[in-house]
């Protein structure tokens, strides 16, 4: 089982982003997903910066994959994606337009979690189209993933989103800009002030969601650290850790330790690492916000 570092979902300063990836070069992850996946207006790193960063991480021994935005709308969104595909090699497609671009260039792709693969026939279609790996939808239960793999006829690697706030929805509208009464076109890049997004609570104070520009996330952190036995025997080859502003290195180390020695899962102070709380409902076929104790 290999660990991967998922794409950065938040908007950090250029220096913070470069520092994060400089550190990640030494983490126990085989693969690093790069690129801006949420909003094309975010520009602390440009396409050429991401490509240069990718080269450095390749030299550090990492497999580098460029992730597409989940909502590709404009002509420039498409052209920068073509450049990643031509110059960078591996793509994670989170939109059918990205699949088209990978296919046209005959490069392999990773079918991302936003492509809506819920059954074997669709998974086989992607494999035949050039997908070498897939991520189930974030809402898929373990049982649904097992059933999809049982239905599929073609071999493919499976990567599971194991740890991170869940990217639940994408909109035309920017909720961060809306919060500041700004229009999306003149948002003053307010996302950069919220390194882990903005918490959204119910009016009785329950943590519920997290605003991250045009993306809406779970407030809580989805975590399969206590379910690793049932994760590994699904047949997954890769586990994804999603970046957060602090403690990502410790999360990677925790998963590496727990994969090597299951008892290690309980040794980490999750209250400190993810004070927003851990949930795993989706994995168990429940509402994603639920937490099922498995230890």
């Amino acid at each position, binding site marked *: 089982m290999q660990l991967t570092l998922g794409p950065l979902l938040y908007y950090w300063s250029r220096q913070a982003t470069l520092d994060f990836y400089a550190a990640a070069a030494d983490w126990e992850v085989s693969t690093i997903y790069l690129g801006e996946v949420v909003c094309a207006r975010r520009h602390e790193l440009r396409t050429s910066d991401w490509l240069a960063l990718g080269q450095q991480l390749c030299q550090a021994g990492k497999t580098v994959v460029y992730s597409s935005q*989940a*909502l*590709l*709308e*404009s*002509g420039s969104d498409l052209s920068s994606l073509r450049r990643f595909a031509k110059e960078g090699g591996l793509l994670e497609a989170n*939109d*059918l*337009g*990205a*699949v*088209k671009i990978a*296919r046209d260039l005959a490069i392999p792709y990773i079918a991302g979690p936003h492509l*809506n693969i*819920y*059954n*074997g*026939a*669709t*998974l*086989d*279609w992607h494999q035949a189209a050039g997908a070498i790996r897939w991520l189930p*939808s*974030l*809402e898929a239960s373990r049982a*649904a993933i097992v*059933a*999809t793999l049982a*239905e599929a006829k073609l071999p493919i690697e499976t990567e599971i989103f194991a740890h991170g706030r*869940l990217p*639940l*929805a*994408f*909109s*035309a*509208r920017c*909720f961060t800009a*809306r*919060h500041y009464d700004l*229009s*999306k*076109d003149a948002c003053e890049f307010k996302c950069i002030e919220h390194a882990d997004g*903005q*918490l*959204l*609570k*119910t*009016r*009785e104070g*329950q943590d*519920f*969601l997290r*605003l991250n520009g045009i993306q*809406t996330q*779970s407030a809580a952190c989805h975590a399969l650290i206590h379910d690793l036995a049932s994760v590994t025997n699904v047949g997954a080859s890769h586990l994804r850790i999603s970046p957060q502003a602090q403690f990502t290195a410790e999360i990677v180390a925790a998963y590496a330790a727990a994969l090597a020695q299951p008892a290690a899962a309980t040794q980490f102070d999750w209250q400190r690492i993810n004070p927003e709380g851990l949930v795993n409902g*989706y994995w168990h076929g*429940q*509402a*994603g*916000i639920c937490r099922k104790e498995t230890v």
Partner: protein
Amino acid sequence: MPSLAPHLPQLICPAGSLPALKAAVQSGADAVYLGFKNATNARNFAGLNFTDSQLKSGIEYAQSQGREVLIAINTYPQAGRTAEWQASIDAAADLGANAVILADLGLLEYATRRHPQLRRHLSVQGSATNFEAVNLAYEHFGISRAVLPRVLTLPQIEYVIKNTPVEIEVFGFGSLCVMAEGRCILSSYATGESPNTHGVCSPASHVQWLPKGDTLDTRLNGILIDHFEKDEPAGYPTLCKGRFEVGDASYYAMEEPTSLNALSVLPELIRMGVKAIKVEGRQRSPAYVSEVTKTLRAAIDAASDPRYSVKPAWQQALSKVSEGHQQTLGAYSRPWR
């Protein structure tokens, strides 16, 4: 009456029942879209939708009036149960539907192989927001039409149209999804059931209306979505249209309860070459379908006149049936940018 001018877009209206289908046809819809009474349907609500025999008579009636029936099989087949979705495609073909509206690639492939003569439309749930995505579905599955998610601006819609041979359908009126359709699992995060997996959003089975003295709380699976004071009109607790707290502010953090109304941009949509205008609302009553269809029919027929303007009577008619009695141009307008 249906549009006679070939350059005018088709008016596509919803039907959750046979009376709604008849109301749509009698009010001037060019086509009616509907779904089966099962999990293949993205409006899989209790008391709605069509059995095979209702569908048969609905199709006979609509086609006898020169209108089309499009069958939406637009949830994602859940692994292990794919046969149910395939059987629905077979049934749509056998019943003589004019087209099927699909989102799942595996199902599109099945329909293409098994029923090549049955027209295929890419559902809004397929989340195709750019021409590359539309063209992928065209090359592989020969789709003749794609329904665009309600996230694109008018220039973005025009850019898609200019770069694809596929007919483009957009929403003209109805409840507004603020998220990109097919890319939202907020509902399953809160309840375990989503549009993609169960054909429902913020399902009624998980809703609680809890009066407290003069006030009312609405909850979804126990999560407080909104709280209404004595004189506030209470709305259904659709998750993204509740009031929440962000920082120090308490407000509609995502979207107010509101309906999309594209009447004012109809001439622009027609000029760009949009081939069909869709009305949302298979969960709504025949009276809603009738009112909205008549209004949109009149507006589309008038929209190619250079002196076109939105008539106050149309606005009033649509306002009565709008969510929260509010309307917006959504992503079509600048304030959303």
